[in-house]
């Protein structure tokens, strides 16, 4: 099948790129090997740094950081675009991308991020601000005692949902009868605080309804605390973006292992997708590489060699530095700098192709862990690469 642009990867950057393009009438395909890592993320949008001001943090990032190629204005615009899309879809993201805020993590520590889904809006509590905890009987992946260890004043009420997994409880929450019984149970509890912390299980599809109903019927404020994966807020984020893309006419090729690609001089012509039976072929005028970093499978490394897994583009890696040393788990490890180097138009510098653009965590020097810029990078470089791809095909 033939498209104007084929985006490889269905994570944050790939989906944002595809939505941007499809909205402008560009026929777009997304080719991906499986569901993305963002579906098990906390669902929060980190933009930059850990201080109060995100833009100030970016000023201190090294010159090669992809944010400097995006530009601050375009960064803010792309995040605003993301917020608009999500609001229209019914999963509002709260916050100002120029500012950071702190949310409560499942181990009771605070973590800095910028935008949060509306279910975590009330998570930003001043120190000493008291809250009540609702947990679930035998729940895996959420342990209230971590929280009470740090907040000894917090009381815990435990509801028996008849199931013990976050996915199972969230599925039940989407059922009206179950929700009613849960609300009634809450009303019977002795809860001294106005704020209630709850693991992130407020439904998979009807989250808005569930959250609002809980607050209305109990008269309290609720906020979700992200859990260990499987992570419902991440799942909501991924499914929403994918639904938005589908609604705008993006075609999805999933379970798609790219086994080969066709090229002619400086152009990539099409992708071959290996499948049982016949392969599928996706041809396009331009391609966006948004396959992610090592954990997502866009990059691969063994002890001696780094490689890019689709087009075998040379990977920039911090040469001469010892990669596997005792500091492996420390922030700022040189492996985080590795990736694909791009020019100002997000075209990989070390490749021969003129119709290939790269976006997201595959980009060199992004160091998303160190700089706290994961989803912000994905969104802004995804949109930026899409703009350049659109310019190229016009």
């Amino acid at each position, binding site marked *: *099948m033939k498209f104007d642009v084929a985006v490889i990867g269905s994570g944050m950057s790939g989906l944002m790129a595809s939505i941007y393009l499809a909205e402008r009438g560009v026929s777009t395909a997304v080719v991906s*090997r*499986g*569901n*993305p*890592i963002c*579906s*098990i993320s906390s669902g929060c949008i980190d933009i930059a740094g850990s201080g109060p001001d995100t833009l100030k943090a970016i000023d201190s990032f090294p010159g090669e950081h992809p944010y400097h190629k995006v530009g601050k204005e375009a960064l803010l615009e792309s995040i605003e675009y993301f917020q608009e899309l999500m609001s229209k879809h019914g999963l509002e993201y709260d916050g100002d991308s120029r500012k950071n805020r702190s949310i409560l993590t499942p181990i009771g520590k605070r973590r800095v991020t910028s935008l949060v889904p509306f279910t975590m809006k009330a998570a930003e509590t001043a120190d000493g601000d008291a809250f009540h905890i609702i947990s679930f009987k035998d729940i895996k992946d959420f342990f209230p005692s971590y929280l009470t260890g740090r907040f000894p004043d917090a009381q815990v009420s435990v509801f028996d949902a*008849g*199931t*013990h*997994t976050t*996915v*199972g409880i969230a*599925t039940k929450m*989407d*059922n009206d009868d179950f929700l009613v019984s849960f609300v009634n149970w809450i009303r019977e509890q002795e809860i001294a605080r106005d704020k209630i912390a709850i693991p992130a299980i407020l439904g998979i*599809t009807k989250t808005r309804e569930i959250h609002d109903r809980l607050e209305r019927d109990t008269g309290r404020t609720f906020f979700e605390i992200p859990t260990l*994966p*499987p992570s419902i807020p991440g*799942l909501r984020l991924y*499914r929403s973006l994918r639904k938005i893309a*589908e609604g705008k006419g993006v*075609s*999805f*090729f*999933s*379970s*798609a*292992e790219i086994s080969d690609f066709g090229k002619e001089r400086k152009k990539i012509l099409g992708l071959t*997708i290996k*499948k*049982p*039976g*016949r392969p*599928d072929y996706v041809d396009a005028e331009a391609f966006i590489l948004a396959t992610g970093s090592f*954990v*997502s*499978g866009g990059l691969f490394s063994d002890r001696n060699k780094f490689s890019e897994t689709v087009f075998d583009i040379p990977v920039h890696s911090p040469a001469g530095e010892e990669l596997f040393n005792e500091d492996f788990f420390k922030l700022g490890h040189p492996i985080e700098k590795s990736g694909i180097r791009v020019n100002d138009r997000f075209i990989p510098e070390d490749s021969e192709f003129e119709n290939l653009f790269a976006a997201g965590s595959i980009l060199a020097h992004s160091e998303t862990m160190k700089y706290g810029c994961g989803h912000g990078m994905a969104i802004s470089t995804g949109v930026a690469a899409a703009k350049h791809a659109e310019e190229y095909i016009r």
Partner: protein
Amino acid sequence: MRSSFENCIRCTICVEECPAFKANPEYPGPKQAGPDAERFRLDGVETVDKWITLCTQCKRCDYACPYGVDPSKLILKAQIRYVTENGRTLPQVLFANFHYVAVLGSMFSVITNVITSSVLIKRLLRSIGLRSDIPFPRFRFRTLQRFRNQSAVHKPVAAAAKPRKVAFFHGCYLNSNAPDEGRMILAVLEHFGIRVVVPKQICCGLPALGNGDLAKARGFATENSKELAKYVDEGWDIIYSCTSCGRTLIYDYPEILGTDEGNRISENTWNLYEYLLLLRDERRIEFEFKPVKRVISYHIPCHLRGRGVPYPAGDIIRQIPGIELHIQDENCCGFSGSYGFKEKNKHTTDTLGRIAVESLTKANPQAIISDCGSCRMQISNFTDTAVVDPIQVLCEALGIRTSVAGG
């Protein structure tokens, strides 16, 4: 059936997609049932637990996994081993041999349909672990096979320059339970000037696999492949409409047969609508649709979703003027063929069915379509909205009046 379980990094992305996991706390999910438990099974210890049978084989985990693990394959292997170690239950024997049930059911359809709805038989079914609270599919006497050699009723209207020839693999459901829809498919193919035959065939083998009988599945596959390979060798394409049969032919035949014949069948088998789109792209056929004013929700069967291509029937139906199409692919209907007929799976099946139908009916559709007969059966248990095969919409838009409809 090999799968590289060592690629698993335990990210739980597969768990997020698993329908059985979200509905049934007894089932630990594809990560644990697949790659995690596989490490122990490799030791040869009897570690296949009973919960392994709670997996519906919807394949959503394979689709979700970014690392190529294919948990469903590991689970299927363990399910087969579980049945081998623990013996077959009566429902498993019954459904592994569903082909013969269907053939007999159709042959004596008048009697079968009466007795499957009788109270006594329902009580009997219940006593062997089958559900008696949902209708058994009605069997039809005029199966596709029975009249397969009769010539076409419809004259080609847009005969292509070089006519394509296809062999239609109908599977059990379209043959014995929904032969009218089967005939509509033949009529549509002929409408586009495509030469179509219905080769001799038996069950694709999927129910046998799903009920732990690999030998039987291999037997069915061998028999089918002998017949189908003849057509392939003479330049015919194999067309399927049942997305589970199609998946079995394409994905499973090469592995369970392990022969070149299996590969040839896999490479030359096409989804009906994908095939029509291909011919359209090659400008061999043109779509000329009459307007059909209708709001339609399209339930994507898991086994179509697993193909990983944009949904071909949706792509065609969307082009019919007047149609408002809502695609729903996030929910498994929960029935999964014989799985849903078993009493022990009732809770899982019903929970998932209710979730799927709730989202399908959200847009207030006048009809719900789905390629899969088993999905259609399940959906119609939860709604009064008409649940039909996509071919019915296509026939209407093409102005094909089928004398068979409703007969």
